[in-house]
């Protein structure tokens, strides 16, 4: 009796303590919205850094008021939002309006939970093709980009001039590597970026991958190997620190902000911090292998309208989306979020207001969506293999060739 009881105890201890892990597998989340109450519309976005009293929070509330309803805004962490949306859709309580990171759009479309913008009657004609591309599948757009951000190279003016490097001379990979060499010889550090094993790592690697002419459907092509070899060569030569493997874009920025680094690959969203860094900085576009600007991946969110049982709600949802994204309102939205606007007219206004944005606008013009070009939901699998390859090559575990070869075969297997 006692013995069996104790046995049971041991067994249930074994099972019970593991449950915290397995619960992730199938847990359902009921903390979502319970939308249908009269004049309340639910709104999700990935900006937990903005509370209700922030400019963004006020903008969202104001758009609700204009549409004659109350908007209940919930902000999630961006990595969390995609899964939250899937779970909510499964439970049948998706939000009325949801802003999601652009590569997530194709996953949500695959899940069948987003409405086409054409069905809702939203006008997207003025939006730049390459920006809306990330949310376009089989010719139909499934959301309206609120704005775009992307990557460029920040440089520290003092470090460069001390090393005798002219930023304007950096036109291609070889001139950049030569500059890094000079900086190192002058006793400073070369470049910092993020090569972490998450989507951020792929996001940061793509400008180099595309800048060599690489194609995401063929990771182990000569171009792909060239890009990874460039990064590996930098790390091996000490031009880039070893800890890029652990760097998120935020920690990479913190390294650049110490003032020891000549270059930092980072995004539009750091402009505010750059002014606080305490040294003079400049921004250049990421060079392609043989000169010119490399195509960079677009970042930034799409405003989407998830499918609802009660289709009568779409009218108000549409008003809210229009309020946030119409040409007249984009300037305010994007200034609030420090994004580059998705239409050229508003971009011109932005540059007039803040000349610092100029290199960013040209970078956005050359940018590509990660899921564009028909990749859609194949991209996540490819991206995971790509960041794994970057990690194994930079850590010295594998050569760039064999790392990318493994990645390519795994990506083919994974998406089949």
């Amino acid at each position, binding site marked *: 009796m006692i013995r069996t*009881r104790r046995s049971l105890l*041991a*067994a249930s*201890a074994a099972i019970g303590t593991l449950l915290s892990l397995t619960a992730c*597998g*199938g847990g359902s989340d009921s903390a979502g919205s319970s939308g249908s109450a009269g004049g309340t519309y639910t709104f999700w976005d990935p900006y937990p850094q903005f509370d209700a009293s922030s400019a963004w929070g006020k903008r969202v509330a104001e758009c609700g008021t204009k549409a004659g309803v109350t908007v209940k805004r919930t902000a999630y962490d961006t990595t969390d939002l995609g899964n939250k949306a899937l779970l909510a859709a499964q439970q049948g309580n998706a939000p009325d309006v949801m802003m999601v990171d652009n590569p997530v759009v194709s996953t949500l479309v695959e899940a069948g939970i987003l409405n086409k913008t054409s069905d809702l009657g939203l006008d997207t004609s003025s939006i730049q093709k390459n920006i809306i591309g990330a949310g376009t599948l089989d010719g139909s757009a499934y959301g309206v980009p609120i704005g775009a951000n992307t990557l460029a190279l920040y440089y520290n003016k003092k470090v460069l001039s001390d090393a005798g490097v002219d930023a304007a001379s950096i036109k291609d990979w070889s001139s950049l590597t030569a500059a890094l060499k000079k900086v190192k010889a002058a006793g400073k550090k070369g470049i910092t970026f993020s090569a972490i094993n998450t989507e951020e790592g792929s996001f940061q690697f793509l400008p180099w991958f595309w800048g060599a002419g690489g194609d995401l459907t063929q990771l182990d092509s000569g171009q792909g190997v060239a890009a990874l070899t460039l990064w590996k060569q930098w790390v091996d030569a000490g031009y880039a*620190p070893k800890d890029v493997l652990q760097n998120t874009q935020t920690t990479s920025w913190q390294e650049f902000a110490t003032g020891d680094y000549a270059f930092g690959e980072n995004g539009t969203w750091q402009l505010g911090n750059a002014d606080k860094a305490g040294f003079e900085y400049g921004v250049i576009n990421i060079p392609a292998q043989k000169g010119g600007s490399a195509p960079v991946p677009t970042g930034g969110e799409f405003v989407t309208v998830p499918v609802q049982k009660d289709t009568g709600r779409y009218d108000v949802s549409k008003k809210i989306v229009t309020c946030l994204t119409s040409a007249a309102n984009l300037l305010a939205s994007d200034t609030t979020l420090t994004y580059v606007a998705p239409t050229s007219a508003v971009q011109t206004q932005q540059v007039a207001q803040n000349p610092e944005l100029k290199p960013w606008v040209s970078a956005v013009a050359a940018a590509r969506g990660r899921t564009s070009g028909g990749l859609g939901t194949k991209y996540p699998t490819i991206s995971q293999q790509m960041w794994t390859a970057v990690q194994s090559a930079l*850590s010295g575990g594998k050569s760039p060739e064999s790392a990318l070869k493994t990645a390519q075969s795994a990506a083919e297997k994974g998406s089949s």
Partner: protein
Amino acid sequence: MAVARVDRPRPAAAAPGAGGEDGERAGASALARRHRRTRRLTALAFVAPLVVYLAAFYVYPLYRNLDLSLRDYTVRSFVAGDAPFSGWDNFRKVLDDPTFGPAMRHTMIFTLVSIVFQYVIGLALAVFFDRHFRLSTVLRALFLIPWLLPLIVSASTWSWMFNSESGVVNYLLHLLGVAPVGWLTSPNWALTSVIIANIWIGIPFNLVILHSGLQNIPAELYEAASLDGAGTWQQFRRITFPLLRPVSAITLLLGLVYTLKVFDLIWIMTKGGPGDSSSTLATWSYQLGFGTLLPRFGPGAAVGDILILIALVFGLLYIRVQRRQEA
């Protein structure tokens, strides 16, 4: 965390009806039966909350996880809820994956090395603190700090300390004239680094349980042993260690289960990287289910099932050992 056991005497059988006549006896037994039934109902009412709790928080998630792992879920069928049954496909996929071998090996190394060091150091400290010297309570309390800190704090701190550029560990090595080590950035060191951090976190648990086990060993035994001329080492080997065996067994089992599923520590420090050089079954399961933009719930759940199975095997092993000890 502590394993409590309540052994109550069985309820006394319902008092037999007294008296000689048949009718009277029948009446009494009917009364007794009704009595018994209400008693059983009361008992059920007391058990019900527990049963509901177990069903809602243990059985259902477990069932859902099993269900997830046996169906072919895509994002579309996840939302629509019509994923086709696919038998062992997910398990086959997981077992065929080139990540499986390394993840399994890392899980085993991580778990066994962690437990051995946690236990040995925990036991050494427990014996040490059993001596009741001055400040021993204060010191013992200080040793509990790793347990009290939120895991995200300790994991981030370790991650900073091990940073290959600006970490304090490499700085110390530099002062000693040793070349810097890529603690978290070299595939040869990443697993070692997370194991070191995990050992540090696990010591207090072992210390506390083993220390309380030591309190239960009667002091007379030691007195008798020292009268017989046993040295400190002999006392430890012949008295302390054998008498601690039951406590040790449960400490090791719980430690094993906790360590098998360690996820947050590794995720915060290396995310299983670089490459997959520190990925374990737990991090891999998360990676599959939530780590990319396109969740793969089925294979993720399958890896979770395998983890449960491993823990269960060790749980059963523990029971066997326990039986043999008691027999």
